[in-house]
């Protein structure tokens, strides 16, 4: 059955082709069904393969499809790798992908670009599957670029809006910066090890020069920074909320942005060898977590809050990677995929009910009108805030415990970031669902629970968010940590836990207490004291203003990078291009024109003159050949 793995990316590809070519001819119901069934079929095969792998002795299977690049020293087969890591990501992508496809049928039902939407969505799933299935870095890179393209297409899905188009371009360009690092990393791997196939590279990586490996690890991490929105390349992700909400849930929360984490877990051998690179990853991760969490505190757009929350959670995952807690990070990817997809879809349901309104200042009191959305979002919020026994608690706790082993300072900042998370998430919940409705009468009249196709995915994701923690129960409770065992075969250098049980209990207690206290604080502020965010952005002062404006990072990039580039471009245009290049080109032209205006006088058009000069010429030639 494992041989069937090639079918997994094939189904979404077929769905993409059908919807892409015939989407306009078939009706909406059919095109949505085709796209969803394609992903469902992949999910079923992924499940079969997952269980087969689980019961198989051999934990790593390669499936060779064809020889792709075959030149002198560069031999790259088109191979898929089925191992615990890729099979797990397959389940997340196709499983969550399927739920979001179903949700989109309801969410997009009035949109004229319905078939186009599903075309892009299926293409995205195809590339994402390629990314995780490839057995070498080049296939991963193809998938990597492909998901970037789909992200661009879907952010700019409503392409008539210039701001949305700009957001799409921003995402694409920011990603390209990271991709360059990734590409250089792949080239360095090839130059150093003579291969880019995972198995071959990892088996000889331990013998490599440590500085080279640090360079490889850092270059790969630059790629991850772009794709997974880490400092300093994170600014595209909040803007990416311009896309339809299911896109934000699938691409910009659950799957694509975790590609960076997948890539680092896949390359864990480099990071285990190079402590410096791991340290960089951990510091960038925690800095991003903290930075994005503070911005999230003062955002008023419901999707922007979730976007900054995603950046912050991704930072936590990178913190886990930096302290070699690879399986914990994958665990957090999983639980995050559950509850963040849930939160985004819930937010989509709210926006749907509000008729497109995204500003939380105009919401409130939606609890009664949207009961299912409220309950599921409450579950998601509790899960992300880290309250036991919901899933977020276990995964976050595991990362923070491993961080504490490495460095209590990093743990402290990580803990602060997760407290801030609890605060802004409950702020979102209180402002949206509690208190009085603050929108217009028309909106109030229009409020309604979303259709079944939207609420069922919410319910399924809510159940997963509750029970997802079972995948990785803490080991010191003498409970099986399934995730840890599952991923064991792909972690090459293992670092056993050195924390004693008292310390772990203490960390857990601190985390729960901190989350509880923050939630209570949020309750006091937004329910008891009925604080509302300033309706007028201009009135903010001091640090609040700084944070509300996202630390002016966009403005900083604008001033430091874009403006100088503009000035240089204008210089090259006005001086180099118009003066020098055009001067040379036009100069050549006018010189030729000048010379020919002299020479053309010889062409009188009198046939007699032509013949006369011809005869004179012949005589001269004859004369010359005689005297020679």
């Amino acid at each position: 059955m494992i041989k069937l793995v090639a079918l997994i990316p094939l189904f979404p590809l077929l769905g993409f082709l059908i919807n892409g070519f015939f989407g306009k001819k078939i009706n909406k119901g059919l095109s949505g069904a085709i796209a969803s069934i394609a992903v469902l079929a992949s999910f079923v095969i992924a499940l079969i393969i997952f269980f087969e792998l689980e019961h198989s002795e051999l934990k790593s299977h390669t499936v060779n499809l064809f020889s792709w690049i075959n030149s002198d020293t560069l031999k790259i087969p088109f191979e898929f790798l089925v191992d615990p890591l890729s099979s797990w990501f397959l389940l997340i992508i196709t499983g969550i992908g399927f739920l979001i496809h179903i949700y989109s049928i309801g969410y997009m039902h009035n949109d004229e670009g319905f078939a186009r939407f599903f075309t892009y969505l299926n293409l995205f799933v195809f590339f994402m599957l390629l990314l995780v299935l490839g057995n070498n870095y080049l296939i991963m890179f193809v998938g990597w670029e492909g998901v970037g393209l789909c992200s661009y297409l879907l952010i700019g899905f409503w392409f008539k809006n210039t701001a949305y188009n700009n957001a799409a371009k921003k995402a694409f360009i920011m990603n390209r910066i990271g991709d360059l690092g990734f590409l250089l990393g792949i080239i360095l791997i090839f130059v150093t090890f003579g291969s880019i196939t995972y198995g071959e590279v990892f088996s000889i990586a331990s013998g490599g020069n440590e500085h080279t490996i640090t360079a490889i690890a850092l270059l790969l991490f630059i790629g991850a920074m772009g794709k997974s929105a880490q400092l300093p390349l994170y600014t595209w992700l909040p803007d990416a909320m311009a896309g339809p909400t299911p896109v934000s849930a699938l691409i910009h929360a659950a799957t694509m942005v975790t590609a960076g984490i997948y890539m680092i877990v896949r390359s864990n051998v480099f990071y285990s060898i190079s402590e410096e690179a791991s340290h960089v990853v951990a510091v960038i991760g925690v800095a991003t977590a903290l930075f994005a969490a503070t911005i999230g505190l003062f955002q008023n757009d419901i999707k922007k809050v979730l976007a900054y929350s995603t950046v912050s959670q991704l930072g936590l995952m990178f913190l886990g990677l930096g302290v070699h807690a690879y399986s914990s990070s994958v665990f957090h990817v999983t639980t995050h995929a559950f509850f963040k997809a849930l939160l985004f879809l819930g937010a989509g349901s709210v926006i749907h009910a509000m008729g497109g309104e995204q500003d939380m200042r105009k919401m409130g009191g939606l609890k009664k009108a949207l009961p299912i959305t409220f309950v599921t979002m409450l579950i998601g919020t509790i899960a992300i805030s880290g309250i036991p026994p919901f899933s977020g608690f276990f995964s976050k706790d595991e990362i923070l415990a491993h961080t504490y082993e490495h460095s209590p300072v990093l743990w402290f900042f990580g803990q602060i970031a997760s407290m801030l998370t609890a605060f802004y998430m409950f702020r979102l919940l209180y402002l949206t669902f509690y208190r009085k409705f603050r929108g217009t009468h028309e909106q109030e009249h229009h409020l309604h629970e979303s259709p079944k196709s939207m609420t069922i995915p919410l319910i399924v994701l809510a159940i997963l968010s509750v029970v997802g923690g079972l995948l990785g129960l803490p080991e010191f409770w003498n409970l099986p940590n399934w995730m840890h065992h599952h991923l064991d075969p792909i972690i090459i250098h293992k670092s056993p836990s050195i924390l004693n049980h008292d310390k772990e209990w203490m960390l857990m207690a601190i985390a729960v207490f901190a989350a509880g206290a923050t939630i209570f604080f949020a309750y006091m502020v937004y329910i008891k004291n009925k604080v509302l965010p300033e309706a007028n952005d201009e009135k903010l002062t001091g640090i609040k203003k700084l944070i509300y404006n996202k630390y002016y990072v966009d403005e900083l990039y604008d001033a430091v990078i874009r403006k100088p580039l503009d000035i240089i471009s204008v210089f090259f245009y006005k001086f180099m291009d118009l003066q020098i290049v055009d001067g040379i080109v036009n100069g050549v032209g006018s010189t030729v024109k000048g010379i020919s205006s002299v020479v053309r006088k010889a062409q009188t058009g009198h046939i007699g003159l032509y013949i006369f000069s011809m005869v004179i010429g012949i005589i001269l030639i004859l004369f010359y050949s005689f005297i020679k």
Partner: protein
Amino acid sequence: MLNGIPINYYIMLSAVLFIIGAVGVMARRNAIIVFMCIELMLNAVNLLLVAFSTLHNDASGQVFVFFIMAVAAAEVAVGLAILAMVYRNFKSIDIDLLSRLKN
């Protein structure tokens, strides 16, 4: 010796014919006369070819003459057709009028 006439005579005759032809082409403006002069030059060459062919006892020179005659006939046919068209347009066969083609 060709029937007692030295080869130099033939060369002289053909050179004179050729020069008459060439000067005629250059000097005259009537297209018919220009054509006739071209024929004169071709036949000067033919005469020379035939003379040398006999001198060397080699028939290939005479074969060439036939070719030249055939080509000249074709050329005259085309050329006279052009002239007919020129006359139709200009009501004249003065070749200097053809300088209008330069534009």
